[in-house]
């Protein structure tokens, strides 16, 4: 089984962390987004969507991190303990509820904050307008409030007292704005404690390994310029930022 990944990407980190933590064997195929490799002919043969992560299991190719996680959970159900995706009807529903909700909230808003802080200056040559930035940060804050109040509450993990895939999917998204110096965990002791527990369950070395590249994002500007990826990305981001 091969996983096409770039650990700058949150969904890539989720799949990477889950497979490594549970001992599911895979070959790491780097698709370097900072070099625009997602647009290469070679990667185009793997996936026309030109996004990561992608899984290739024999001849079966699958996109979308959530689908990949669910596939791995089902395929390796005898290897992976039940708490990762509980077979109990209501607990599983809670996991599915988070996995669905997060796309347009934590994921979209965390990404937006990351892009405005890290990419806007590189692409547009100036800091992002304050009103846009403030609005994006406020939207993210409201979603993180809901994450704490509706999902986490007083439990150890999002769905129960054991870690599950929802926790992995959540934590990697929250780390994205953190990488730009915006500490979404600040003033949220409950969330900090949860992150600590998630890190401990996954393994601190593994967690740090997964987050190594994104935490070096301050060097991204130079990397993108050197690789020529900036020219590829510019029109796409200009549309997004206009």
């Amino acid at each position, binding site marked *: 089984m091969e996983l096409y990944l770039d650990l700058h990407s949150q969904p890539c980190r989720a799949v990477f962390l889950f497979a490594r933590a549970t001992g599911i064997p895979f070959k790491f195929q780097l698709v370097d987004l900072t070099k625009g490799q997602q647009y290469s002919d070679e990667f185009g043969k793997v996936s*026309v*969507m030109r996004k990561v992560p992608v899984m290739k299991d024999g001849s*079966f190719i*699958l*996109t*979308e*991190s*959530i*689908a990949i996680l*669910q*596939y791995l959970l*089902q*395929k390796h159900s005898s290897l992976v303990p039940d708490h990762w995706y509980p077979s109990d*009807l*209501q607990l*599983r*529903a*809670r996991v*599915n*509820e988070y*996995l*669905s*909700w997060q*796309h*347009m909230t934590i994921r*979209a808003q965390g990404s937006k904050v990351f892009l405005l802080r890290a990419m806007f200056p590189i692409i547009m040559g100036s800091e992002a307008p304050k009103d846009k930035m403030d*609005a994006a940060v406020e*939207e993210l804050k409201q979603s993180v409030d*809901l994450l704490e*109040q*509706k999902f986490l509450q007083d439990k150890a993990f999002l769905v129960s007292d054991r870690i599950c895939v929802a926790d992995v999917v959540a934590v990697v998204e929250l780390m994205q704005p953190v990488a730009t110096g915006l500490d979404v965990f600040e003033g949220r002791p409950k969330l900090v404690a949860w992150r600590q527990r998630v890190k401990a369950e996954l393994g601190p070395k593994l967690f740090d390994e997964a987050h190594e590249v994104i935490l070096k994002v301050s060097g991204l500007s130079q990397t993108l310029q050197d690789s020529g990826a900036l020219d590829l990305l510019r029109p796409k981001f200009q*549309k997004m930022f*206009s």
Partner: protein
Amino acid sequence: MELYLDLFSQPCRSVYMFAKKNNIPFEFKDIALMNGDHHSEAFGRINQLRKVPALRDEDFCLAESIAIMQYMAEKFKTPDFWYPADLQQRARVNEYLSWQHTAIRMNGSKIFWMRLMMPTVYELEVPQEKMDGAIEDLNTSLTLIEEKFIQDKAFIIGDNISLADLVAIVEIMQPLGAGLDIFEGRPKLSAWRDRVVDAIGKDLFDDAHQKILGAEEAIKHLDKSIVQIFKPKVIRLFL
């Protein structure tokens, strides 16, 4: 079991059709979004996220249409084709269900809001450039649905309808509610739509879509003052 629904909402339509098609008994709890019902204290106790659809099964409350349908499929043991037990087939359903959130769902919603809700209810002018961009994004999603998801198959994952088609069709129907015929010039998509309608049953499909297809008319009789409090959020989301 109660389902809290407003059939103006795409995910409510897929949940509604899925439950009815599978003869799953439920009480329809009407939540009129344009009346601000989703902001009532009572509804907040059902779904803190303040969105529809929501499910209540005795003391278990659940949000998110996809999670709701996965729950119903499992609990009521619906026919396998809706959410196949086969590893690869299920993966293809999950792949579509994941992709669609930030693609067709977002793009179709945006068009509905930009063409109908914003000018009519909120008296907001949408810059042509933004409208053109939104139409372009919608077309990109529709093309991907035709060329990557449906391809030459009868339905998204093969010969049988699944949750993927159910979730797809309701989103694709939304721009029609704002008077944009996205099926025009798309024979492949139209043929797929006919198959989906046939598999669901035309009466049920029409029943589910009556409200959205009458949206332009319904909006004229709306008490606009109720939803003005959402105006800043609408501006932030779509402009």
